[in-house]
């Protein structure tokens, strides 16, 4: 108990240092905060524009699709805030920060994340939350206790899922230095995929992203359960509740990948 409390205090101290360093220049921090909303706004606008030319996408109306957009935007923004910077792993290796972190009596991954936490991205998470709440309010959902629970659990599971994807894809750079583009195509590609009903996509692409990598269970399936719609692709109703399980599997996969990656770590120079 005292052990865990001490570790927590240590992480809190690291976070505090990071906050002080980042907010030292107040004006530029505020500008960063505002600028960071931009990307998420753009995602929502894209969907609105699409529905300007069509009434339905893959059999779903704008109000229904916005539930998926809101869930994905919110969860991805939070995951990006918390663990997104792990995509800088190759830089941490190059500058020796990774060595420094391994020499301290704390977990390497939490240290890296806290020492480089992009606080300016908080604004994106807040905007994502606003989109999520608005979408839920506007979708005409018949609220039951279980749906309320799902509305809370689904974004949390999605945060864990997206976070795991960030870590697992970044870890590939331990083995293969030029893996950045591949990692991006899975993380950002996955986010875009999860913003739309999977019925929009087809063939091997849908199979790979939706079921192979599990992105369908993050946003599309919980949205179906909230809206009370059956899956046009025939998955049973419980699939709407599979998100936490899928997130845990992703988490286990990511932590295994990370551990193997650290074992293969080669450091640099002297």
């Amino acid at each position, binding site marked *: 108990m005292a052990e865990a409390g*001490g570790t927590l*205090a*240590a992480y*809190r*101290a*690291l976070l505090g*240092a990071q906050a*002080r*360093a980042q907010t*030292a220049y107040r004006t530029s921090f505020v500008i960063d905060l505002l600028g960071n909303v931009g990307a998420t706004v753009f995602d929502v606008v894209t969907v609105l524009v699409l529905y300007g030319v069509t009434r339905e996408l893959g059999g779903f109306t704008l109000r229904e699709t916005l539930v998926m957009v809101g869930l994905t935007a919110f969860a991805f923004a939070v995951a990006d805030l918390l663990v997104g910077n792990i995509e800088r792993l190759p830089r941490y290796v190059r500058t*020796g920060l990774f*060595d*420094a972190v*391994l*020499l*301290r*009596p*704390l*977990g390497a991954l939490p240290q890296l994340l806290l020492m480089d936490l992009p606080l300016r991205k908080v604004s994106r998470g807040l905007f994502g939350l606003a989109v999520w709440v608005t979408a839920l309010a506007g979708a005409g959902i018949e609220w039951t206790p279980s749906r309320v629970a799902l509305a809370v659990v689904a974004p949390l599971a999605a945060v864990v899922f997206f976070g795991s994807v960030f870590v697992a894809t970044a870890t590939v750079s331990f083995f293969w230095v030029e893996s950045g583009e591949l990692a991006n195509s899975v993380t950002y590609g996955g986010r875009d995929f999860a913003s739309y009903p999977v019925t929009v996509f087809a063939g091997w692409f849908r199979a790979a992203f939706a079921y192979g990598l599990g992105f369908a269970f993050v946003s599309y399936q919980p949205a179906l359960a909230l809206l009370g719609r059956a899956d046009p692709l025939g998955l049973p109703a419980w699939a709407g509740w599979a998100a936490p399980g899928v997130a845990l599997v992703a988490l286990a996969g990511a932590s295994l990948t990370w551990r193997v990656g650290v*074992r*293969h*770590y*080669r*450091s640099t*120079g*002297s």
Partner: protein
Amino acid sequence: MSLVIDARGLRKEFTVRVKAGRLRRERRSVVAVDGVDLRIERGEMLGYIGPNGAGKSTTLKMLTGVLTPSAGQARVCGLLPVPQRARLARGIGVVFGQRSQLWWDLPLRDSFDLLRHVYRVPAAEHAARLRRCRGLLDLDGFLDIPVRQLSLGQRMRGELTAALLHGPQVLFLDEPTIGLDVVSKQAVRGFLAELGRAGDTTLVLTTHDLADIERLCHRLVVIDHGRVVHDGTIAELHRRYGSRRLVVAELDAALVTPLTLPGAPLQRVEADGRRLVYALESAGVAEVVAGLAGLTTLRDLSILEPDIEDVVARLYRTPARSG
């Protein structure tokens, strides 16, 4: 006998991809450390030297839990470095000359305070150690300056302090004097010597600067191509490989016949006979000075330490080495 470090057959192999043809790349394996045995007792001060690429840093990284050995085993403070990395971190301090443990954007003082939380050091202990380092390393002038604005010498004094605030049993130093000016070098060496005198900290030091070793270490381990080629005292090394210190004597006027001394053969005569260079074998500096002073006036006298790269190069060429 209490071994603080016990490494047996430590080996590290890297695979590198080498271009072979336009698109093809071949995987080739490079052995950085090739079966190193190292037993270090509590309180020892060990110099670990070798030419660039000999495997010094790689060994240190395996002993500190940063790199996983390809083969062999190491125990440091009784712990296995990689599986018990976090626990080991509390027992060791590490200074990498070309890496930093400090927070770049924060004042030095804040880094020290953060490390107290990271290592969970009781406030009183932390304050006592910091006070000692402030005195010995003269930190007071720059404690409130962000690390990125410190000079290399100031930063290195900060790094040393950072590595010691949790009271480690073993201090690993990877080229701690690299790039430092003479004054800073002396400050760092003096501090480490003081630490060694106290006797409870074990020190493992890699360096290219033989003066570091001579000042600080009794025992010297030399590695080359990933293997230990010498493990013993510095005197033993010089005896074994015939590396000698040189005495350079500047004279007011050239001697008709340069002095010859038993135990200190004349190496060179320069500057029209006004500069004589003797190699010290069994004779000491005093005998050379006494011999010359009887014949002429000495204008200047300097002693040249044997160059470490030179010693190691000689070592590598020695045919007695097996394998």
